[in-house]
Protein backbone atom coordinates (compact mmCIF):
# COMPACT_ATOMS: atom_id res chain seq x y z
CA UNK A 1 0.00 0.00 0.00
CA UNK A 2 1.24 3.51 -0.76
CA UNK A 3 0.78 5.58 2.37
CA UNK A 4 1.28 9.35 2.73
CA UNK A 5 1.60 10.73 6.26
CA UNK A 6 1.40 14.44 7.08
CA UNK A 7 3.19 15.74 10.16
CA UNK A 8 2.09 19.24 11.27
CA UNK A 9 5.07 20.05 13.49
CA UNK A 10 8.72 20.68 12.67
CA UNK A 11 10.70 17.50 12.20
CA UNK A 12 13.77 19.17 13.84
CA UNK A 13 11.93 19.75 17.12
CA UNK A 14 11.41 16.64 19.26
CA UNK A 15 7.81 16.07 20.27
CA UNK A 16 5.23 13.38 20.92
CA UNK A 17 3.45 13.67 17.58
CA UNK A 18 6.74 13.60 15.62
CA UNK A 19 7.95 10.47 17.45
CA UNK A 20 4.59 8.81 16.90
CA UNK A 21 4.78 9.50 13.16
CA UNK A 22 8.39 8.33 12.96
CA UNK A 23 7.60 5.02 14.70
CA UNK A 24 4.43 4.53 12.65
CA UNK A 25 6.25 5.15 9.36
CA UNK A 26 9.07 2.78 10.30
CA UNK A 27 6.57 0.11 11.37
CA UNK A 28 4.81 0.28 7.99
CA UNK A 29 8.11 0.26 6.08
CA UNK A 30 9.12 -2.91 7.96
CA UNK A 31 5.86 -4.49 6.81
CA UNK A 32 6.77 -3.66 3.21
CA UNK A 33 4.50 -0.68 2.58
CA UNK A 34 5.66 2.41 0.75
CA UNK A 35 5.57 5.40 3.08
CA UNK A 36 6.24 9.09 2.51
CA UNK A 37 6.05 11.63 5.34
CA UNK A 38 5.49 15.31 4.58
CA UNK A 39 6.81 17.45 7.42
CA UNK A 40 8.03 20.99 8.01
CA UNK A 41 11.81 21.03 8.31
CA UNK A 42 14.71 23.40 7.77
CA UNK A 43 16.33 22.80 4.42
CA UNK A 44 19.66 21.85 6.00
CA UNK A 45 18.32 19.34 8.57
CA UNK A 46 19.29 15.77 7.77
CA UNK A 47 16.06 13.84 7.16
CA UNK A 48 15.39 10.11 7.02
CA UNK A 49 14.85 8.92 3.41
CA UNK A 50 11.07 8.66 3.81
CA UNK A 51 10.58 12.29 4.91
CA UNK A 52 9.84 15.06 2.40
CA UNK A 53 10.38 18.63 3.61
CA UNK A 54 7.50 21.06 3.26
CA UNK A 55 9.73 24.02 3.99
CA UNK A 56 10.51 25.82 7.20
CA UNK A 57 7.76 26.36 9.75
CA UNK A 58 7.23 30.01 10.68
CA UNK A 59 6.82 30.97 14.34
CA UNK A 60 3.55 32.91 14.78
CA UNK A 61 1.53 33.74 17.84
CA UNK A 62 -1.45 31.36 17.85
CA UNK A 63 -3.80 30.20 20.57
CA UNK A 64 -1.97 31.89 23.42
CA UNK A 65 1.54 30.74 22.61
CA UNK A 66 4.03 30.93 19.77
CA UNK A 67 3.38 28.05 17.40
CA UNK A 68 5.52 27.03 14.46
CA UNK A 69 3.17 26.71 11.52
CA UNK A 70 3.31 26.13 7.80
CA UNK A 71 0.97 28.06 5.58
CA UNK A 72 0.88 30.33 2.58
CA UNK A 73 1.36 29.97 -1.11
CA UNK A 74 4.69 28.11 -1.15
CA UNK A 75 3.66 25.50 1.41
CA UNK A 76 0.39 24.91 -0.43
CA UNK A 77 2.31 24.39 -3.68
CA UNK A 78 4.64 21.87 -2.00
CA UNK A 79 1.65 20.01 -0.58
CA UNK A 80 0.07 19.76 -4.03
CA UNK A 81 3.29 18.55 -5.61
CA UNK A 82 3.74 15.92 -2.89
CA UNK A 83 0.18 14.69 -3.43
CA UNK A 84 0.63 14.63 -7.16
CA UNK A 85 3.98 12.80 -7.11
CA UNK A 86 3.04 10.37 -4.35
CA UNK A 87 0.00 8.71 -5.98
CA UNK A 88 -1.02 7.48 -2.54
CA UNK A 89 -3.68 4.88 -1.81
CA UNK A 90 -4.41 6.63 1.46
CA UNK A 91 -3.16 9.70 3.26
CA UNK A 92 -2.97 10.00 7.02
CA UNK A 93 -3.10 13.53 8.41
CA UNK A 94 -2.14 14.29 11.99
CA UNK A 95 -3.78 17.20 13.81
CA UNK A 96 -5.93 18.28 10.83
CA UNK A 97 -7.56 21.11 12.78
CA UNK A 98 -4.35 23.04 13.48
CA UNK A 99 -3.73 25.79 10.92
CA UNK A 100 -0.67 24.13 9.44
CA UNK A 101 0.23 21.42 6.94
CA UNK A 102 -2.59 19.12 8.03
CA UNK A 103 -5.30 21.58 7.16
CA UNK A 104 -3.56 22.53 3.89
CA UNK A 105 -3.43 18.89 2.85
CA UNK A 106 -7.06 18.33 3.78
CA UNK A 107 -7.91 21.30 1.61
CA UNK A 108 -5.82 20.18 -1.34
CA UNK A 109 -6.51 16.43 -1.45
CA UNK A 110 -9.35 14.16 -2.37
CA UNK A 111 -9.76 10.42 -1.90
CA UNK A 112 -9.36 8.27 1.21
CA UNK A 113 -8.12 10.53 4.01
CA UNK A 114 -7.51 9.29 7.55
CA UNK A 115 -6.91 11.81 10.33
CA UNK A 116 -5.62 11.43 13.88
CA UNK A 117 -6.58 13.96 16.54
CA UNK A 118 -3.89 14.06 19.22
CA UNK A 119 -4.65 17.03 21.43
CA UNK A 120 -7.77 17.84 23.31
CA UNK A 121 -7.48 21.62 23.27
CA UNK A 122 -10.36 23.63 24.58
CA UNK A 123 -12.26 25.14 21.69
CA UNK A 124 -10.51 28.33 20.63
CA UNK A 125 -12.09 31.52 19.33
CA UNK A 126 -10.22 31.15 16.06
CA UNK A 127 -11.78 27.73 15.59
CA UNK A 128 -15.26 29.15 16.05
CA UNK A 129 -14.60 31.97 13.60
CA UNK A 130 -13.14 29.60 11.03
CA UNK A 131 -15.74 26.90 11.69
CA UNK A 132 -17.30 27.02 8.21
CA UNK A 133 -13.93 26.84 6.44
CA UNK A 134 -12.68 24.16 8.82
CA UNK A 135 -15.83 22.10 8.32
CA UNK A 136 -15.48 22.22 4.53
CA UNK A 137 -11.94 20.85 4.82
CA UNK A 138 -12.59 18.37 7.63
CA UNK A 139 -15.62 16.81 5.97
CA UNK A 140 -13.27 15.30 3.38
CA UNK A 141 -11.80 13.04 6.07
CA UNK A 142 -13.13 9.52 5.61
CA UNK A 143 -11.97 8.15 8.94
CA UNK A 144 -11.11 9.89 12.17
CA UNK A 145 -8.92 8.43 14.88
CA UNK A 146 -8.69 9.83 18.41
CA UNK A 147 -5.76 8.81 20.62
CA UNK A 148 -7.90 8.40 23.73
CA UNK A 149 -11.51 8.32 24.81
CA UNK A 150 -10.89 11.79 26.23
CA UNK A 151 -9.60 13.16 22.93
CA UNK A 152 -12.59 11.59 21.18
CA UNK A 153 -15.00 13.31 23.53
CA UNK A 154 -13.51 16.76 22.86
CA UNK A 155 -13.54 16.06 19.15
CA UNK A 156 -17.22 15.13 19.23
CA UNK A 157 -18.09 18.20 21.30
CA UNK A 158 -16.10 20.69 19.19
CA UNK A 159 -16.41 19.45 15.65
CA UNK A 160 -19.27 16.96 15.74
CA UNK A 161 -19.03 13.55 14.13
CA UNK A 162 -17.38 10.51 15.58
CA UNK A 163 -14.01 8.77 15.73
CA UNK A 164 -12.54 5.41 16.59
CA UNK A 165 -10.13 5.29 19.51
CA UNK A 166 -6.67 3.90 18.74
CA UNK A 167 -4.04 4.70 21.37
CA UNK A 168 -0.52 5.88 20.61
CA UNK A 169 1.97 3.09 20.13
CA UNK A 170 5.07 2.21 22.11
CA UNK A 171 7.83 -0.28 21.33
CA UNK A 172 7.22 -2.24 24.53
CA UNK A 173 10.19 -4.60 24.13
CA UNK A 174 12.64 -1.72 23.70
CA UNK A 175 11.77 -0.61 27.23
CA UNK A 176 11.21 -4.08 28.68
CA UNK A 177 14.65 -5.30 27.58
CA UNK A 178 16.68 -2.24 28.64
CA UNK A 179 19.34 -2.82 31.27
CA UNK A 180 18.95 -1.18 34.66
CA UNK A 181 21.61 1.29 35.79
CA UNK A 182 22.71 0.62 39.41
CA UNK A 183 23.36 4.37 39.94
CA UNK A 184 19.66 5.01 39.54
CA UNK A 185 18.49 2.20 41.81
CA UNK A 186 17.68 2.04 45.52
CA UNK A 187 14.81 4.17 46.85
CA UNK A 188 14.60 6.35 43.79
CA UNK A 189 11.67 8.34 42.47
CA UNK A 190 11.81 9.17 38.77
CA UNK A 191 10.40 12.15 36.87
CA UNK A 192 10.77 12.86 33.15
CA UNK A 193 9.61 16.09 31.56
CA UNK A 194 10.31 19.77 31.00
CA UNK A 195 11.40 21.27 34.31
CA UNK A 196 10.18 24.77 33.52
CA UNK A 197 6.77 23.74 32.20
CA UNK A 198 4.43 23.94 35.22
CA UNK A 199 1.83 21.73 33.52
CA UNK A 200 4.30 18.83 33.70
CA UNK A 201 3.84 19.14 37.46
CA UNK A 202 7.37 19.25 38.88
CA UNK A 203 6.34 22.03 41.36
CA UNK A 204 3.71 19.70 42.86
CA UNK A 205 6.31 17.00 43.29
CA UNK A 206 8.73 19.51 44.88
CA UNK A 207 6.02 20.51 47.35
CA UNK A 208 5.46 16.88 48.28
CA UNK A 209 9.15 16.02 48.56
CA UNK A 210 9.82 17.29 52.16
CA UNK A 211 7.06 15.00 53.45
CA UNK A 212 8.39 12.03 51.52
CA UNK A 213 11.92 12.67 52.80
CA UNK A 214 10.63 13.06 56.37
CA UNK A 215 9.23 9.54 56.20
CA UNK A 216 12.02 8.01 54.13
CA UNK A 217 15.21 10.14 54.32
CA UNK A 218 17.19 7.79 52.05
CA UNK A 219 14.91 8.58 49.07
CA UNK A 220 16.40 10.28 46.01
CA UNK A 221 14.48 12.14 43.31
CA UNK A 222 15.90 11.79 39.80
CA UNK A 223 14.77 14.40 37.28
CA UNK A 224 15.37 14.04 33.55
CA UNK A 225 14.45 16.92 31.28
CA UNK A 226 15.34 20.38 30.06
CA UNK A 227 15.01 23.55 32.14
CA UNK A 228 16.48 25.74 34.88
CA UNK A 229 17.65 23.45 37.70
CA UNK A 230 18.31 26.26 40.23
CA UNK A 231 14.80 27.57 39.85
CA UNK A 232 13.29 24.11 40.21
CA UNK A 233 14.72 23.50 43.68
CA UNK A 234 14.11 27.05 44.94
CA UNK A 235 11.04 26.06 46.96
CA UNK A 236 12.98 23.29 48.69
CA UNK A 237 14.80 23.78 52.06
CA UNK A 238 18.56 24.00 51.35
CA UNK A 239 19.45 20.81 53.28
CA UNK A 240 17.10 18.73 51.12
CA UNK A 241 18.39 19.96 47.76
CA UNK A 242 21.10 17.30 47.66
CA UNK A 243 18.40 14.63 47.48
CA UNK A 244 17.42 15.86 44.02
CA UNK A 245 19.59 14.86 41.06
CA UNK A 246 19.21 16.45 37.64
CA UNK A 247 20.19 14.39 34.63
CA UNK A 248 19.35 16.95 31.93
CA UNK A 249 18.06 15.78 28.55
CA UNK A 250 18.55 12.04 28.14
CA UNK A 251 18.67 9.84 25.04
CA UNK A 252 16.00 7.26 24.22
CA UNK A 253 18.31 4.45 25.40
CA UNK A 254 18.98 6.22 28.69
CA UNK A 255 15.30 6.90 29.12
CA UNK A 256 14.57 3.18 28.86
CA UNK A 257 17.34 2.36 31.37
CA UNK A 258 16.13 5.16 33.64
CA UNK A 259 12.56 3.81 33.69
CA UNK A 260 13.89 0.30 34.20
CA UNK A 261 15.91 1.41 37.24
CA UNK A 262 13.68 3.70 39.32
CA UNK A 263 11.61 2.26 42.17
CA UNK A 264 8.68 4.55 41.50
CA UNK A 265 7.78 6.71 38.51
CA UNK A 266 5.75 9.81 39.35
CA UNK A 267 3.71 11.76 36.75
CA UNK A 268 2.30 14.79 38.60
CA UNK A 269 1.05 16.55 35.43
CA UNK A 270 -1.64 19.12 36.16
CA UNK A 271 -3.35 19.26 32.77
CA UNK A 272 -3.03 19.56 29.03
CA UNK A 273 -2.46 15.84 28.49
CA UNK A 274 -4.60 13.94 26.03
CA UNK A 275 -2.81 10.62 26.22
CA UNK A 276 0.23 10.11 28.47
CA UNK A 277 2.72 8.12 26.43
CA UNK A 278 5.31 8.41 29.21
CA UNK A 279 3.10 6.30 31.49
CA UNK A 280 2.96 3.58 28.85
CA UNK A 281 6.74 3.74 28.50
CA UNK A 282 7.19 3.53 32.26
CA UNK A 283 4.87 0.51 32.49
CA UNK A 284 6.68 -1.13 29.56
CA UNK A 285 9.94 -0.79 31.46
CA UNK A 286 8.27 -2.29 34.52
CA UNK A 287 8.29 0.85 36.66
CA UNK A 288 5.45 1.17 39.19
CA UNK A 289 3.54 4.31 38.23
CA UNK A 290 1.96 6.96 40.45
CA UNK A 291 0.12 9.60 38.40
CA UNK A 292 -2.29 12.49 38.89
CA UNK A 293 -5.89 11.55 38.18
CA UNK A 294 -6.27 13.40 34.87
CA UNK A 295 -8.91 11.84 32.60
CA UNK A 296 -6.29 10.76 30.06
CA UNK A 297 -3.98 9.25 32.70
CA UNK A 298 -6.81 7.40 34.43
CA UNK A 299 -7.68 5.83 31.10
CA UNK A 300 -4.12 4.76 30.28
CA UNK A 301 -3.77 3.28 33.79
CA UNK A 302 -7.06 1.37 33.43
CA UNK A 303 -8.77 3.53 36.11
CA UNK A 304 -6.05 2.82 38.63
CA UNK A 305 -5.72 -0.94 38.10
CA UNK A 306 -2.35 -0.74 36.30
CA UNK A 307 -0.91 2.17 38.30
CA UNK A 308 -1.89 4.32 41.26
CA UNK A 309 -3.65 7.67 40.94
CA UNK A 310 -3.65 10.66 43.31
CA UNK A 311 -5.86 13.77 43.35
CA UNK A 312 -4.51 16.25 40.80
CA UNK A 313 -2.35 19.09 42.28
CA UNK A 314 -2.71 17.65 45.79
CA UNK A 315 0.90 17.47 47.09
CA UNK A 316 -0.17 15.83 50.37
CA UNK A 317 -1.99 13.05 48.57
CA UNK A 318 1.06 12.57 46.33
CA UNK A 319 3.43 12.36 49.32
CA UNK A 320 1.17 9.95 51.19
CA UNK A 321 0.82 7.62 48.17
CA UNK A 322 4.54 7.76 47.34
CA UNK A 323 5.58 6.86 50.89
CA UNK A 324 3.05 4.05 51.04
CA UNK A 325 4.33 2.59 47.77
CA UNK A 326 8.02 2.95 48.66
CA UNK A 327 7.40 1.10 51.93
CA UNK A 328 5.51 -1.74 50.27
CA UNK A 329 7.67 -3.77 47.83
CA UNK A 330 4.90 -6.37 47.42
CA UNK A 331 2.45 -3.77 46.13
CA UNK A 332 5.11 -2.43 43.74
CA UNK A 333 5.76 -5.91 42.36
CA UNK A 334 2.03 -6.31 41.87
CA UNK A 335 1.88 -3.00 39.96
CA UNK A 336 4.88 -4.00 37.84
CA UNK A 337 3.18 -7.25 36.84
CA UNK A 338 -0.20 -5.69 36.14
CA UNK A 339 1.47 -2.89 34.18
CA UNK A 340 3.45 -5.16 31.88
CA UNK A 341 0.34 -7.18 31.01
CA UNK A 342 -1.81 -4.09 30.50
CA UNK A 343 0.76 -2.35 28.32
CA UNK A 344 0.64 -5.00 25.58
CA UNK A 345 -2.37 -3.28 24.02
CA UNK A 346 -0.19 -0.22 23.35
CA UNK A 347 2.52 -2.18 21.56
CA UNK A 348 3.11 -1.22 17.92
CA UNK A 349 2.15 -4.72 16.78
CA UNK A 350 -1.41 -4.07 18.06
CA UNK A 351 -1.67 -0.35 17.38
CA UNK A 352 -0.11 -0.58 13.92
CA UNK A 353 -2.44 -3.43 12.92
CA UNK A 354 -5.43 -1.37 14.06
CA UNK A 355 -4.32 1.66 12.04
CA UNK A 356 -3.77 -0.57 9.02
CA UNK A 357 -7.32 -1.91 9.52
CA UNK A 358 -8.56 1.67 9.30
CA UNK A 359 -6.61 2.22 6.06
CA UNK A 360 -8.01 -0.97 4.56
CA UNK A 361 -11.54 -0.07 5.63
CA UNK A 362 -11.45 3.33 3.91
CA UNK A 363 -9.61 2.22 0.78
CA UNK A 364 -12.13 -0.57 0.17
CA UNK A 365 -14.57 0.93 -2.32
CA UNK A 366 -12.74 4.21 -2.93
CA UNK A 367 -10.38 5.61 -5.55
CA UNK A 368 -6.79 6.62 -4.81
CA UNK A 369 -5.75 9.99 -3.41
CA UNK A 370 -5.39 12.85 -5.88
CA UNK A 371 -4.92 16.59 -5.77
CA UNK A 372 -8.37 18.15 -5.56
CA UNK A 373 -8.81 20.24 -8.70
CA UNK A 374 -11.84 22.00 -7.29
CA UNK A 375 -9.91 24.03 -4.73
CA UNK A 376 -7.52 26.92 -5.08
CA UNK A 377 -6.58 28.77 -8.23
CA UNK A 378 -6.50 25.70 -10.44
CA UNK A 379 -10.10 24.97 -9.48
CA UNK A 380 -11.21 28.33 -10.70
CA UNK A 381 -9.29 27.84 -13.93
CA UNK A 382 -10.84 24.41 -14.37
CA UNK A 383 -14.30 25.82 -13.89
CA UNK A 384 -13.66 28.50 -16.51
CA UNK A 385 -12.24 25.93 -18.88
CA UNK A 386 -8.69 27.31 -18.71
CA UNK A 387 -6.99 24.45 -16.91
CA UNK A 388 -3.81 23.04 -18.36
CA UNK A 389 -2.62 19.55 -17.62
Amino acid at each position, binding site marked *: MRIGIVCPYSWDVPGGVQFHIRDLAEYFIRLGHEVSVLAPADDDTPLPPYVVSAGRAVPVPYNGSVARLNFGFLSAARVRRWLHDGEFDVIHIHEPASPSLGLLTCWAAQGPIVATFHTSNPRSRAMIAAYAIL*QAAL*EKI*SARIAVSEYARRTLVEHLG*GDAVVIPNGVDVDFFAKAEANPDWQGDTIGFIGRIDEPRKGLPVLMKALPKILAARPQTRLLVAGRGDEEEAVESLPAELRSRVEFLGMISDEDKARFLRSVDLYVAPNTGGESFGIILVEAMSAGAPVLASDLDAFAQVLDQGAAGELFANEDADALAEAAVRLLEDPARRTELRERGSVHVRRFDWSTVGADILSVYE*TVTAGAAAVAADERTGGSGLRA*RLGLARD
Partner: protein
Amino acid sequence: MTATLIWILVALVAIGLYLSWTAGRLDRLHARIDAARAALDAQLLRRASVAQELATSGVLDPAASIVLYEAAHAARQAEEEQREVAESELSQALRAVFAEPQQVEAVRDAPGGEEAARELTEAVRRVPMARRFHNDAVRAARALRRHRKVRWFRLAGHAPFPLAFEMDDEPPAALVDRAA
Protein backbone atom coordinates in the same frame (compact mmCIF):
# COMPACT_ATOMS: atom_id res chain seq x y z
CA MET B 1 -26.17 52.86 -14.47
CA THR B 2 -23.58 50.69 -16.20
CA ALA B 3 -21.61 50.53 -12.96
CA THR B 4 -24.66 49.23 -11.08
CA LEU B 5 -25.25 46.61 -13.77
CA ILE B 6 -21.63 45.47 -13.59
CA TRP B 7 -21.86 45.17 -9.80
CA ILE B 8 -25.05 43.15 -10.03
CA LEU B 9 -23.37 40.90 -12.58
CA VAL B 10 -20.30 40.45 -10.36
CA ALA B 11 -22.52 39.60 -7.40
CA LEU B 12 -24.48 37.06 -9.45
CA VAL B 13 -21.29 35.39 -10.68
CA ALA B 14 -19.94 35.27 -7.12
CA ILE B 15 -23.16 33.69 -5.82
CA GLY B 16 -23.10 31.23 -8.71
CA LEU B 17 -19.53 30.19 -7.95
CA TYR B 18 -20.34 29.80 -4.26
CA LEU B 19 -23.35 27.61 -5.02
CA SER B 20 -21.33 25.54 -7.47
CA TRP B 21 -18.64 25.08 -4.83
CA THR B 22 -21.27 24.00 -2.27
CA ALA B 23 -22.77 21.55 -4.75
CA GLY B 24 -19.26 20.15 -5.25
CA ARG B 25 -18.89 19.74 -1.49
CA LEU B 26 -22.20 17.92 -1.30
CA ASP B 27 -21.32 15.71 -4.21
CA ARG B 28 -18.06 14.76 -2.51
CA LEU B 29 -19.92 13.95 0.71
CA HIS B 30 -22.35 11.71 -1.15
CA ALA B 31 -19.43 9.93 -2.79
CA ARG B 32 -17.87 9.51 0.66
CA ILE B 33 -21.08 7.97 2.01
CA ASP B 34 -21.23 5.55 -0.94
CA ALA B 35 -17.62 4.47 -0.37
CA ALA B 36 -18.18 4.13 3.38
CA ARG B 37 -21.34 2.11 2.83
CA ALA B 38 -19.54 -0.20 0.39
CA ALA B 39 -16.78 -0.69 2.96
CA LEU B 40 -19.33 -1.41 5.70
CA ASP B 41 -21.12 -3.93 3.48
CA ALA B 42 -17.83 -5.65 2.74
CA GLN B 43 -16.94 -5.90 6.44
CA LEU B 44 -20.40 -7.17 7.42
CA LEU B 45 -20.30 -9.77 4.68
CA ARG B 46 -16.84 -10.87 5.71
CA ARG B 47 -17.96 -11.26 9.32
CA ALA B 48 -21.01 -13.30 8.33
CA SER B 49 -18.90 -15.54 6.06
CA VAL B 50 -16.32 -16.31 8.76
CA ALA B 51 -19.12 -16.99 11.25
CA GLN B 52 -20.83 -19.33 8.82
CA GLU B 53 -17.56 -21.12 8.06
CA LEU B 54 -16.94 -21.66 11.76
CA ALA B 55 -20.50 -22.88 12.27
CA THR B 56 -20.15 -25.53 9.58
CA SER B 57 -16.57 -26.53 10.46
CA GLY B 58 -17.50 -28.90 13.27
CA VAL B 59 -15.15 -27.21 15.73
CA LEU B 60 -18.04 -25.89 17.82
CA ASP B 61 -20.54 -28.02 19.69
CA PRO B 62 -23.78 -28.75 17.76
CA ALA B 63 -25.93 -26.28 19.69
CA ALA B 64 -23.51 -23.40 19.21
CA SER B 65 -23.08 -24.38 15.54
CA ILE B 66 -26.81 -24.16 14.89
CA VAL B 67 -27.23 -20.83 16.69
CA LEU B 68 -24.29 -19.29 14.83
CA TYR B 69 -25.30 -20.75 11.47
CA GLU B 70 -28.85 -19.42 11.81
CA ALA B 71 -27.68 -15.93 12.68
CA ALA B 72 -24.99 -15.79 9.99
CA HIS B 73 -27.35 -17.09 7.35
CA ALA B 74 -30.07 -14.61 8.33
CA ALA B 75 -27.57 -11.74 8.22
CA ARG B 76 -26.41 -12.63 4.72
CA GLN B 77 -29.91 -13.09 3.34
CA ALA B 78 -31.59 -10.15 5.08
CA GLU B 79 -33.59 -7.64 3.04
CA GLU B 80 -32.38 -4.07 3.26
CA GLU B 81 -35.06 -3.12 5.85
CA GLN B 82 -34.23 -6.05 8.12
CA ARG B 83 -30.48 -5.78 7.71
CA GLU B 84 -29.77 -3.80 10.88
CA VAL B 85 -31.77 -6.23 13.03
CA ALA B 86 -30.25 -9.34 11.43
CA GLU B 87 -26.68 -8.03 11.81
CA SER B 88 -27.37 -7.10 15.46
CA GLU B 89 -28.61 -10.63 16.05
CA LEU B 90 -25.41 -12.01 14.55
CA SER B 91 -23.43 -9.83 17.01
CA GLN B 92 -25.48 -11.26 19.87
CA ALA B 93 -24.99 -14.82 18.63
CA LEU B 94 -21.22 -14.28 18.34
CA ARG B 95 -21.15 -12.85 21.86
CA ALA B 96 -23.09 -15.84 23.18
CA VAL B 97 -20.89 -18.42 21.43
CA PHE B 98 -17.57 -16.74 22.19
CA ALA B 99 -18.37 -15.63 25.73
CA GLU B 100 -15.62 -17.82 27.20
CA PRO B 101 -11.91 -17.52 26.34
CA GLN B 102 -11.80 -21.36 26.35
CA GLN B 103 -14.07 -21.47 23.31
CA VAL B 104 -11.65 -19.23 21.40
CA GLU B 105 -8.78 -21.48 22.49
CA ALA B 106 -10.68 -24.54 21.22
CA VAL B 107 -11.11 -22.91 17.81
CA ARG B 108 -7.42 -22.01 17.69
CA ASP B 109 -6.36 -25.56 18.49
CA ALA B 110 -8.38 -27.05 15.63
CA PRO B 111 -6.57 -27.50 12.28
CA GLY B 112 -6.75 -24.18 10.41
CA GLY B 113 -8.41 -22.68 13.47
CA GLU B 114 -5.67 -20.12 14.09
CA GLU B 115 -6.46 -18.54 10.73
CA ALA B 116 -10.24 -18.61 11.31
CA ALA B 117 -9.89 -17.08 14.76
CA ARG B 118 -7.69 -14.32 13.38
CA GLU B 119 -10.16 -13.56 10.59
CA LEU B 120 -13.06 -13.45 13.04
CA THR B 121 -11.13 -11.18 15.43
CA GLU B 122 -10.34 -8.84 12.56
CA ALA B 123 -13.92 -8.86 11.33
CA VAL B 124 -15.51 -8.08 14.70
CA ARG B 125 -12.99 -5.25 15.15
CA ARG B 126 -13.54 -3.76 11.70
CA VAL B 127 -17.33 -3.78 11.61
CA PRO B 128 -17.65 -1.11 14.36
CA MET B 129 -14.89 0.92 12.66
CA ALA B 130 -16.57 0.86 9.26
CA ARG B 131 -19.93 1.67 10.82
CA ARG B 132 -18.53 4.63 12.71
CA PHE B 133 -16.90 6.02 9.56
CA HIS B 134 -20.15 5.55 7.63
CA ASN B 135 -22.28 7.28 10.23
CA ASP B 136 -19.76 10.10 10.50
CA ALA B 137 -20.07 10.72 6.75
CA VAL B 138 -23.86 10.59 7.03
CA ARG B 139 -23.83 13.15 9.82
CA ALA B 140 -21.64 15.56 7.82
CA ALA B 141 -23.87 15.25 4.74
CA ARG B 142 -27.05 15.76 6.76
CA ALA B 143 -25.61 18.87 8.44
CA LEU B 144 -24.88 20.40 5.04
CA ARG B 145 -28.18 19.32 3.49
CA ARG B 146 -30.18 20.94 6.24
CA HIS B 147 -28.61 24.29 5.38
CA ARG B 148 -30.87 26.94 3.78
CA LYS B 149 -28.76 27.44 0.66
CA VAL B 150 -28.90 23.72 -0.11
CA ARG B 151 -32.65 23.45 0.46
CA TRP B 152 -33.59 26.64 -1.41
CA PHE B 153 -31.52 25.93 -4.49
CA ARG B 154 -32.16 22.16 -4.35
CA LEU B 155 -28.43 21.50 -4.58
CA ALA B 156 -28.86 17.90 -3.41
CA GLY B 157 -30.85 17.05 -6.54
CA HIS B 158 -32.63 13.72 -6.26
CA ALA B 159 -30.12 12.06 -3.94
CA PRO B 160 -32.01 10.31 -1.09
CA PHE B 161 -31.63 11.79 2.39
CA PRO B 162 -28.75 9.78 3.93
CA LEU B 163 -29.61 7.42 6.78
CA ALA B 164 -27.27 6.19 9.51
CA PHE B 165 -26.71 2.46 9.93
CA GLU B 166 -27.75 1.57 13.48
CA MET B 167 -26.88 -1.82 14.91
CA ASP B 168 -25.44 -3.58 17.93
CA ASP B 169 -21.80 -4.18 16.98
CA GLU B 170 -20.34 -4.91 20.40
CA PRO B 171 -17.64 -7.57 19.79
CA PRO B 172 -17.35 -10.74 21.95
CA ALA B 173 -15.18 -9.96 24.98
CA ALA B 174 -13.03 -13.08 24.61
CA LEU B 175 -12.00 -12.12 21.07
CA VAL B 176 -11.25 -8.49 21.81
CA ASP B 177 -9.08 -9.39 24.80
CA ARG B 178 -6.85 -11.44 22.54
CA ALA B 179 -6.51 -8.52 20.19
CA ALA B 180 -5.84 -5.99 22.94
